[in-house]
């Protein structure tokens, strides 16, 4: 017999949180993969897998948040902290453009002293290179709001005015405050994260959403996370993609086994099934390696993410996979898909 939840999914109906739990607990990997794959092709019927050429620039590693899962940050009083000069930024952007890059993913630590004007100037400077700026995850926006005593909306308006194009979905971790209190007590709360995204969407910015799983959260927490994203997406439609990735425990203050490839594929597939209002799901080759990323193209993912000309945060956790654009195209082709370069909003680069 086909289980009622499988039948529901087959018929294209939305499943609730309780049914999502059934998927985690009772369904085998092949059935989940198959259901996710079917939805992937309903949403994106062409056998195309997209990727973006961009560079991950971390403007500072100095951060007052001190999240327990992070191997990258440097406390303000500690040695080893840096803030990139505009000259260094400019060099990195030139390099990115020379490699066919279309965007800069700009994120950094929550620096205690830099004023909002610094970020506005940085945005203006980067935009002078005529490149898409995908920058500042919600915890950074919240931080800017605190240091400037402006509202979230005002901060966003000032950054948009300076040239900000879109917002990355980082810092979401798990959108459950019980979990956040333990792993990232000083970071934006779940509702603050969602508030920034909602405000950004209403101001016309597109954003992505992430989930970092496989640490202290429960399966129910993961589902709550997905549910909060789906609800906001119903309201605004501003998310372009969802990117789940497993926590990398190396060099961090959380001791746990890293989430395995099996858990990753299962979570990816369930995300594809549950997030029926998200157009795109990204595979995480940065954390999983290219081989699992290839398999994930049959478990709901339709995008290979970024070439990551530079990646610092995951590398700091001792995980270092490197892929050139040529590699990415080959890995996509090897699975029977056509590789296509895209922009942040998922339009294809012709």
């Amino acid at each position, binding site marked *: 017999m*086909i289980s009622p939840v499988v039948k529901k999914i087959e018929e294209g109906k939305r499943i609730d949180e309780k049914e999502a739990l059934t998927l985690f607990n009772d369904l085998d990997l*092949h*059935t989940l993969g198959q259901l996710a794959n079917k939805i992937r092709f309903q949403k994106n019927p062409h056998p195309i897998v997209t990727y973006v050429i961009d560079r991950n620039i971390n403007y500072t590693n100095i951060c007052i948040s001190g999240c327990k899962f992070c191997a990258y940050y440097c406390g303000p009083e500690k040695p080893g902290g840096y803030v990139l000069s505009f000259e260094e930024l400019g060099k990195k952007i030139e390099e990115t453009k020379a490699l066919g890059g279309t965007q800069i993913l700009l994120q950094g630590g929550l620096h205690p002293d830099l004023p909002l004007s610094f970020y506005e100037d940085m945005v203006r400077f980067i935009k002078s290179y005529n490149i898409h700026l995908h920058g500042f995850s919600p915890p950074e926006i919240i931080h800017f709001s605190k240091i400037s005593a402006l509202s979230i909306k005002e901060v966003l308006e000032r950054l948009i005015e300076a040239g900000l194009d879109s917002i990355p979905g980082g810092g979401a971790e798990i959108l459950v405050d019980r979990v956040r209190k333990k792993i990232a007590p000083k970071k934006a709360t779940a509702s603050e994260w969602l508030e920034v995204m909602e405000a950004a969407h209403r101001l016309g910015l597109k954003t992505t959403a992430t989930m970092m799983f496989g640490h202290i959260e429960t399966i129910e927490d993961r589902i709550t996370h997905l549910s909060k994203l789906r609800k906001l997406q119903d309201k605004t439609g501003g998310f372009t993609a969802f990117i789940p990735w497993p926590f990398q425990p190396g060099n961090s203050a959380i001791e746990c086994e890293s989430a*395995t490839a*099996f858990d990753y594929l299962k979570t990816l597939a369930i995300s594809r099934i549950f997030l029926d209002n998200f157009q795109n799901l990204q595979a995480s080759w940065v954390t999983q390696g290219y081989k699992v990323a290839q398999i994930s193209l049959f478990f709901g993912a339709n995008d290979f993410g970024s070439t990551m000309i530079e990646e610092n945060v995951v590398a700091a956790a001792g995980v270092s996979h490197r892929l050139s654009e040529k590699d990415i195209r080959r890995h996509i082709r090897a*699975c*029977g898909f056509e590789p296509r370069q895209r922009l942040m909003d998922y339009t294809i680069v012709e």
Partner: protein
Amino acid sequence: MLKEGSQNNFMEMVIERAGLLDIYEKVVSGKRLSKKDGIRLFETNDICALGFMANKVREEKNGQYAYYIYNQHINYSNICTNLCKFCAFGKRAGDDKAYLMSIDEIIEKIKERMDEPIREVHIVGGCHPDLPYSYYIDMLRAIKEVRPDIHIQAFTCVEIAHIAQIGGKSIEKTLEELVEAGLGSIPGGGAEVFSTRIRQKLCPEKLPGNKWIEVAKIAHKMGLKSNATMLYGHIETIEERIDHLLALRQAQDETGGFMCFIPLAFHPKNTELNEIAPTSGIDDIKNIAVARLILDNFPHIKAYWVMLGPKIAQLALSFGADDLDGTVLEEKITHMAGAETSQALSNREIEHLIKSAGRIPVERDTLYNVINVIS
């Protein structure tokens, strides 16, 4: 035909949509798959349908068990007369990177780990032109002397044929004397792809495919168990892969002496074939799944994590594999070809991989006797 009512099963519907229902019907009714079936399975992109079928056979044969062994690897020498094009390990005598371990050095390696509960020492090396026959006999004796309880799985069929030639003895006589010295079973290496075309191009000096099978069959008839491998992902065709599997299936029908089949992903780095791209994750799990479906008379399919990486090896447990090999220390052959895997996984790491894939970790010995079921 499928049983009435079972059409309702979702994955069976999926298999039907994938155009693989006839193969699935053979699988569930225990009928043998043909060469054409094998080719169709390799060609499908319905990964979940393929995995579901392979997993069905895997669970029929091995239930929820996923095996591993606590073992130690010794690669006694990389000096080799064959110098196969796909190999980054073999070197000419006199090469800067050539090495040979003396028996004392081998014993030192064994002694270093006397306090660990190692069940198996796994010994593979090159076809050394000058080592005397006695080296191999003495090696086994010496290991057994310091560690009498350990099972020695040593010398691929290629090495056995080489040792026999050096000793001027028949395969039977050589095996008899190796067994007397302590040989417990034979590893599955050196099979590569049996195709004459492939061997002429890549390893003309190596023991031909039919001779490899002959050595394995002689060993089986003497009561020795062995494994079998296939090196995929270089210049072989799908058809050559299937022919390889069918040759193994036929030999197994005759002797029943194979325990395990191990598909080995080709690692091009540092080999003469370094312009070939490494295998895809999809090809890796397809090789596991198709092997599980074609080799209906092999009890076990191994996902060798050293070659596949722990992540793909773990996923393979849902695509037909029931074994992850071992804790493996000091593996040289794959690592010289650029394998980025670490040298060892602890028991705890292996058990975590298995449990997280929803299986039951089972520590085994070389002959697949259960040592410990970890609940």
